[in-house]
């Protein structure tokens, strides 16, 4: 095995907000893009190193992109399956794409592996300042209300594109590490103190490791 973690992210948001360009920019235009028509998924892969507590972790990042089916509102549950983090994009020059973010969050809460998945909100096309219709404070206020990190990005110039992905990697990796650490501590997080002692308490509604 030549990597330590396989991490799968989804890029979501209305059609035309720049999801594909964003992922293209992140991978420097060099990627294997594989389109699976039966599930309507286009995905790219990239290797990266994540440092934590002085240890280098080799990460194999899979970035899943829609193939335009969101124009028809036809994302299937297969698309959300196994995704660990979400890049949620809107277009700073398109009011409607910002208003739709609420619906996307709603969809995520239904389909993602848990009700509070890791999301990074990106206001894309920040280079087109003269056409901006969503102000930064408005986007920030929305992000704060929804407890999401917010970045203004540009797939054209590359502004904050790496930072957005790295922010998401940090969040997802710290969630994974927390879960691993806790699982190793006896008597924490529903793990019985004694392996022979059955844990009969009903699990909470959360089906994730958060």
């Amino acid at each position, binding site marked *: 095995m030549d990597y330590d973690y396989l991490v799968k992210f989804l890029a979501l948001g*209305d*059609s*035309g907000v720049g999801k594909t360009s964003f992922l293209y920019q992140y991978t420097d235009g060099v990627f294997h893009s594989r*389109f*699976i*028509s*039966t*599930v*309507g*998924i*286009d995905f790219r892969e990239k290797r990266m190193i994540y440092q934590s507590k002085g240890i280098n972790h080799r990460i194999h990042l899979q970035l899943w992109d829609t*193939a*335009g*089916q969101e*124009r*028809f*509102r*036809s994302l*299937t*549950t*297969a698309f959300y399956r196994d995704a660990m983090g979400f890049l949620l994009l809107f277009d700073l020059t398109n009011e409607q794409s910002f208003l739709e973010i609420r619906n996307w969050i709603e969809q995520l809460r239904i389909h993602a592996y848990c009700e509070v998945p890791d999301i990074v909100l990106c206001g894309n096309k920040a280079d087109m300042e003269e056409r901006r219709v969503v102000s930064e404070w408005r986007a920030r206020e929305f992000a704060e209300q929804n407890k999401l990190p917010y970045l203004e990005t540009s797939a054209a110039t590359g502004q904050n594109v790496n930072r957005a992905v790295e922010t998401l990697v940090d969040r997802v990796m710290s969630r994974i590490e927390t879960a691993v650490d806790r699982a190793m501590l006896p008597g924490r997080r529903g793990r019985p103190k004694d392996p022979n002692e059955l844990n009969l308490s009903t699990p909470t509604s959360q089906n994730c490791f958060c």
Partner: protein
Amino acid sequence: MALNPQYDAIGKSFVQQYYMLFDDPIQRPSLVNMYNVEHSFMTFEGKQLQGSAKIMEKFESLRFQNISRQITVVDSQPMFDGGVLINVFGRLQVDTDPPHDYNQVFVLKPLNGSFFVQHDIFRLNIHNTA
């Protein structure tokens, strides 16, 4: 009313005309004439719409510049009220997106020597497993 023996030709020519209008953004609004103000249903990706106004509203909300398509096959049947049931299997491409397979079903209802679209169901063929 008797079965319409022309069902196959009607199905094919309807499909050709319908998509010619749909795929041209300038002519798309004239699709309103294909539907009845009240007695038309459309199910677009699971969302049910009734009446020509709601259906046109849905078409207008679709965001793309260009759409092109290839029809793989059109299967039709005559209906016992003189109408025609049509099933279209094809592939469409929108702007620079990869092509998607789709399926669309129409029921043409006879009215005063012509037809209107009484039922219309559209789905992209996307599955839950690869």
